[in-house]
């Protein structure tokens, strides 16, 4: 039996249940395993539990101990798990007292980087995400696409091993979406980063993900490589498999 909590598994979620204060059952004994180094897509309708799952992994949602493991570290108890996760949330919230460059530098330092390392890494990411010209601008003066890029750059700032991207292309135009795909492929390919991506765009999952999981009502209803899901569920495309999973 593989060691599901060990370093070969980037994320292991073991029967995680989350019930909010108002009684909403967001996650229902959810189980998930994401192999290290994979590009993993999570597809599901609104309210399926995607953001709750991601929030629980990143420390934004309260979760019980011994239910979520990031490279073998308990996300609820071990601060090492936090250092290994880089989160780009769905909603764009950036510190308005800081400039674009400072958003990156301060994030890196909150995650323990030295001032010098954070400065160098920020410059590297500003260049990679074509934000160098906006380095001294406040985030609220950026276009939506630039803010989205900044959010992804911030998630990568402290060199996490698991990048968690919650609908990173929601509301962006087609051109920028393809540009972001290019960045994400590059990061995954060159640096061996494990990526957990949630999206509403089936074609995005098809284009990027090596494995995909369908989530519905707080549970994973099917999971595997896109081709296997299509074969298992019938139909011609991932979209057909997704619709089949949501209806079953």
């Amino acid at each position, binding site marked *: 039996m593989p060691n599901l909590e060990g370093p070969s598994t980037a994320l292991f979620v073991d029967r995680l249940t989350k019930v909010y204060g108002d009684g909403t059952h967001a996650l229902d004994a959810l189980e998930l395993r994401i192999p290290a180094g994979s590009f993993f897509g999570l597809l599901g309708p609104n309210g399926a539990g995607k953001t709750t799952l991601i929030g629980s992994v990143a420390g*934004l949602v309260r979760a019980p101990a011994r239910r979520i493991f990031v490279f073998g570290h308990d996300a609820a108890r071990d601060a090492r798990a936090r250092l290994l996760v880089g989160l780009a949330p769905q909603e764009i919230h950036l510190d*308005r007292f800081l400039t674009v460059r400072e958003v990156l530098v*301060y994030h890196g330092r909150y995650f323990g980087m030295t001032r010098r390392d954070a400065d160098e890494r920020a410059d590297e990411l500003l260049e990679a995400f074509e934000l160098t010209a906006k380095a001294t601008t406040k985030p609220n003066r950026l276009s939506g696409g630039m803010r989205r890029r900044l959010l992804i750059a911030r998630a990568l700032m402290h060199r996490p091993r698991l990048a968690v991207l919650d609908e990173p292309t929601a509301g962006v135009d087609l051109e920028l979406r393809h540009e972001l795909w290019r960045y994400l492929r590059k990061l995954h390919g060159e640096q061996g980063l494990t990526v957990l991506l949630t999206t509403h765009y089936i074609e995005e999952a098809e284009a990027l993900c090596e494995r995909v999981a369908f989530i519905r009502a707080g549970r994973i209803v099917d999971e595997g490589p896109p081709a296997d899901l299509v074969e298992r569920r019938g139909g011609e495309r991932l979209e057909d498999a997704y619709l089949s999973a949501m209806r079953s």
Partner: protein
Amino acid sequence: MTTMALERAQRRGAAALAGREVRRVLSLWTQTILPPVLTAVLFLAVFGGALGARIREIEGLPYLEFILPGLLVMTVAAQAFANNSTSLFQAKSEGYIEDVLTSPLRPWQLALAYMAGGVVRGFMAALAVALLAAPFAGGVERPAIAVASLGLTGLVFSALGVITGIWAETFDQHSFIANIVITPLVLVGGVFYSARTLVEPWETLTRFDPVYYLVDSARAGFTGVHESPLWLSLGLTALVAAVAFATATALLARGWRLKP
């Protein structure tokens, strides 16, 4: 990663967050430092200058010298509280607190880092007031006691600011605590009068106000005059500071009103 490396990373993170809070205070100095200094100077001008000449000495001190330590406590308290309650409330309501909540910082480090901004703001404003008042007031009798009293004031009220920032879900709630709890506590804490001169039950009630002990120990530090034993004043306020800090830490650890 070893435990030592993790702890080093956490220390760096806490220092960065404290730096961010102090930087916010300095970059907004016309809102964070200038107004409280002007308010305190007006208090000194009105009570110490205009009215002071008509008020007899209190506890053997000219009125301006009597009220100056309390005004410094009042300045530190109000600014430390306002800074942290506002900064945390803003970070929470605008959502950018998630950058800090996802970091590896421990809850007590988060509390301490947020408190740093409030303590610095309170001390900077108080220092400006003390320098402006220096030509009209006497020297400092026991500097260590004066600094300890103002330091404890900063710790108590910056921790209360963190708690309020976590608790408040609307700007009205945030203002409510400042106006209904903090301001009255400070104003009835013996800044402008000696508790011994009050009739009952006011004298006893004043002694239930923790701010009274901060004012009394600060007065001991600046002028040498005090009403309660120093060990009681400093010990009691250190206890209040420890309880406030522990409460702020516990709320951050639980993620109360920060994490669903």
